[in-house]
C-alpha cells in the first residue's frame, strides 16, 4: 500500500477551478497532492476562501486561522468574510465538493460521523451544513474499524450526520460510487481483490465485477 494512499487518491478528484471544503485529517492532507496546474480553491467555514499553508513563525496573523483556529495564510485572490456568508456559501450549494471522514456510511448514502451515544459527544459543528449543501460529497476513511468490522454498512447504526448525501467513498482498499440504487465498486487498491472487498463491506455491492485497479503515484 503506497504511503498516504487515501489522501493521494482523494487528490485525483480535484478538477481545475473547483471550490472545495476539506474535513480535518486525511481530507486536509489531500491538499498536499493537488496535481500541478490544477487550481483548487479551499474554503474554511470560519470565513475564508483560497487559503494556503501555515505561516512561518513570526509571520502569523491572529485573525487568519482555519476552522480549528490554527494558523493559515491567505493566497493572493483569497477572500475573508463572516460566518453568515460562509454558511450561505455552504448551504446554498456554491461549493463544488467536500471531503470528510466518517464512522459509518451506508448503501443509501447516509453518513454517521458526529456522535457515538454514551461515548463521543462533540456536537455536529458545520458537518451537517457541508454534507447537505456541497454539490459533491466524498467520504474518505479506512475500510474497516480497528476491530476489522466493516464501516460501509447496509444501514448506519450510529446517529446520522446527513441522509442520502454521499456520492463517493474512498477507503484504503477501494473506491465506490454511491448511486441512487446503491454502491458501485469502481476501483480496487493495489493488491486488493474484489472478493476481499465483498467480505469487508456490509452494504450490497451492485457491480461486483466491474472494478478496475488505478495507479496512485
Amino acid at each position: 500500500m503506497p504511503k498516504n494512499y487515501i489522501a493521494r487518491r482523494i487528490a485525483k478528484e480535484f478538477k481545475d477551478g473547483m471550490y472545495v471544503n476539506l474535513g480535518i485529517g486525511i481530507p486536509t492532507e489531500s491538499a498536499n497532492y493537488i496535481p500541478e496546474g490544477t487550481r483548487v480553491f479551499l474554503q474554511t467555514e470560519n470565513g475564508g476562501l483560497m487559503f494556503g499553508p501555515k505561516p512561518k513563525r513570526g509571520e502569523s496573523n491572529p485573525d487568519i486561522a482555519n476552522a480549528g483556529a490554527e494558523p493559515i495564510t491567505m493566497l493572493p485572490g483569497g477572500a475573508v468574510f463572516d460566518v453568515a456568508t460562509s454558511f450561505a456559501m455552504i448551504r446554498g450549494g456554491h461549493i463544488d465538493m467536500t471531503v470528510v471522514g466518517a464512522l459509518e456510511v451506508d448503501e443509501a448514502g447516509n453518513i454517521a460521523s458526529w456522535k457515538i451515544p454514551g461515548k463521543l459527544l462533540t456536537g455536529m459543528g458545520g458537518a451537517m451544513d457541508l454534507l447537505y449543501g456541497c454539490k459533491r460529497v466524498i467520504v474518505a476513511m479506512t475500510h474497516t474499524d480497528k476491530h476489522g468490522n466493516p464501516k460501509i454498512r447496509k444501514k448506519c447504526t450510529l446517529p446520522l450526520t446527513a441522509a442520502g448525501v454521499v456520492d463517493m467513498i474512498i477507503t484504503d482498499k477501494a473506491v465506490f460510487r454511491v448511486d441512487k440504487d446503491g454502491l458501485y465498486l469502481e476501483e480496487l487498491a493495489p493488491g486488493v481483490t474484489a472478493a476481499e472487498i465483498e467480505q469487508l463491506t456490509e452494504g450490497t455491492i451492485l457491480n461486483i465485477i466491474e472494478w478496475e485497479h488505478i495507479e496512485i503515484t
Partner: protein
Amino acid sequence: MAVQITTAEAVKKIVDQSSVMIGGFLGAAVPLKMIDEIAAAGVKDLTVISIGAGYRGGGVDVGKLVVNHQIIKYVTSHVGTDPNLIKQIVGEEVELELSPMGTFVERVRAGGAGLGAVVTPVGMGTEVEAMAQKITVDGKPYLLFKPIRADVAVIKAYRADPLGNLQYQGMSNTNPIMATAADIVIAEVDEIVEIGEIACEQIGTPGIFVDYIVKGHSYEARKVIYEEMWIATNKL
C-alpha cells in the same frame, strides 16, 4: 453610538444568570481581555452562546469560564475541543443546546435582524429533527428554529472609532453577526482610532450596533499570545 469604557467597567454589565454571546471561532478572534475579566469577576450561572468551545484542549476562550464553573447552559454547535466542558455536560452541570453550525449562525442573525425563525433543510433525517419544529414549504420538508438573542454580546474587532464603528481584519467569523443580537454589545478592539480613519467601506460593524468599546491587547501583544499558543500545540 458607543461609549469607551474600561474592561473592568464593561464586565459589570454581566451579572449572575446573564446570557452572554461571545464572538470568535474556537479561540480565534475572541475578546481575550473581556473573557479574562468575566473569569475574574466570577459571575455564575451564565448562559453562554458561542459557535464552538475554545481552542483544542480546553482552558482557552469560553474554556476559561468552564474551568471556573461559571456556565449553567451552553448554546453552540460544537463542544468537541473542550474536554472539561464535555465532562460538565455529561455530569449535567451544564445544559447543552446544540444546532448545526450554519443554523446556529442564522439563529443569531435572525435574533439581530428581527426575523421570526430560521427555516433550513440542514439536519433533516437526523436527530436534529427533534431539536426543531418540522414545517413544509412548497411540498418540501424543513426544520424551523427559533432566533437566539443575548443580554450581552462580547465581541472582538480589529479597530474601532469613537462612534463604535468596527473594522475587522482576517476572518471576522461570528463577531459581526453577534454584534446585532444582544441588548448590550461590548466590542473589544486592538486599537481605537480617530473618526474618519476607518473608511466607510472598511466598516464591518457600524456604530449603531455597538454600545461599549473596550481596549484589548494591542495587535502585537495579541500576535505573541497566539503564536505562543500555536507553537505550544505544534501548529506553527
